[in-house]
């Protein structure tokens, strides 16, 4: 206040003192000041109080809202954390399933390969055996054909008239034995 009065006094052109020369100006000025203050307190005070109260309420509401948002965010964070945990569990399960499936497929492929290899070995052995038997049979047949051809030639050569007569006599004797 004194500072303001000094400034006012300085505005009047100044007399070297901190109060005007005219004391009435001090009274009038003070009265006007208090009137203005009073008017301000009377007219603007409630509005200011209301504004201040509203401001407090707003801040409280903002705080509540912030708290709620914080709680929501924390809930969301927890949910996400839970989901992440579930995802990790699912990933672990899928990974385990994949490993189990891969192991089973590998085992199946190995078993199938071994079975096919065994079948091929057996078939190969069987084919070789069949071919060997066929070759043996063919050889026997060829030997028989050649032997019989030679035998026929030898027999035909050895069948002179006497032998032919003997064969016919044997035939007649056999007929006699039948009848």
């Amino acid at each position: 206040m004194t500072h303001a009065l000094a400034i006012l006094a300085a505005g009047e052109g100044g007399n070297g003192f901190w109060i005007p020369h005219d004391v009435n100006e001090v009274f009038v000025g003070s009265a006007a000041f208090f009137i203005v203050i009073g008017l301000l307190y009377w007219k603007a005070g409630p509005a200011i109080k209301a504004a201040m109260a509203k401001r407090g309420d707003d801040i409280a509401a903002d705080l509540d809202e912030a708290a709620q948002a914080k709680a929501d965010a924390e809930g969301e964070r927890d949910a996400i954390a839970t989901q992440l945990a579930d995802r990790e569990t699912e990933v672990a399960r899928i990974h385990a399933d994949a490993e189990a499936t891969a192991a089973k497929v590998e085992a199946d492929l190995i078993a199938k390969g071994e079975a096919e290899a065994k079948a091929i070995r057996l078939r190969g052995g069987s084919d070789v055996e069949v071919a060997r038997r066929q070759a043996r049979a063919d050889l026997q047949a060829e030997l028989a054909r050649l032997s019989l051809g030679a035998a026929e030639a030898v027999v035909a050569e050895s069948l002179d008239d006497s032998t032919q007569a003997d064969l016919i006599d044997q035939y007649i004797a056999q007929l006699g034995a039948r009848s």
Partner: protein
Amino acid sequence: MSEARTETYAEALLGLARAEGAEAAVADELYRVAREIDGNAELRSTLTDASLPADRRTKVVTDVLGGKVAPATLAALSAVVASGRADELGAIADALAASSAGSAGKALTTVRTAVALSDDQQQRLATALEAAAGRPIEPRFVVDPEVVGGVHAEIGDQVIDGSVRSRLIQLRELF
């Protein structure tokens, strides 16, 4: 050739032979001539050549067999050749011989040997075969080198095989 046609030809030729009183001669000679022709490729080819006129084929028959067989046999053979059935002469001759034998109450019996048989052998064989068949037979002896040795006899549908050939075949089947 169908069996019915063979039988018809055989019966017709047999009727002609009977009419001429030469049934036995025709049956025997036609049977033998049929086998001779069957074993002679050139003669068979000539007699079965459809491009040759019938009189040319019958002339060949006359030239080859004239005077060697009975006139009734030559006539029967010429008839078969002229009608273009020379390739069926064997079947016709068999049917004629069988029919002739059957008329006499005998079974036509074909006896195949590798060598020609003496009269004594033929007689003993006929007797033995007749005894084995249990009925009278009409034997026809044929020399067939395929027999190799021994005897192969067919009495109607009955076969009595004592040939070396059959033994060789049995031996072949054992392998």
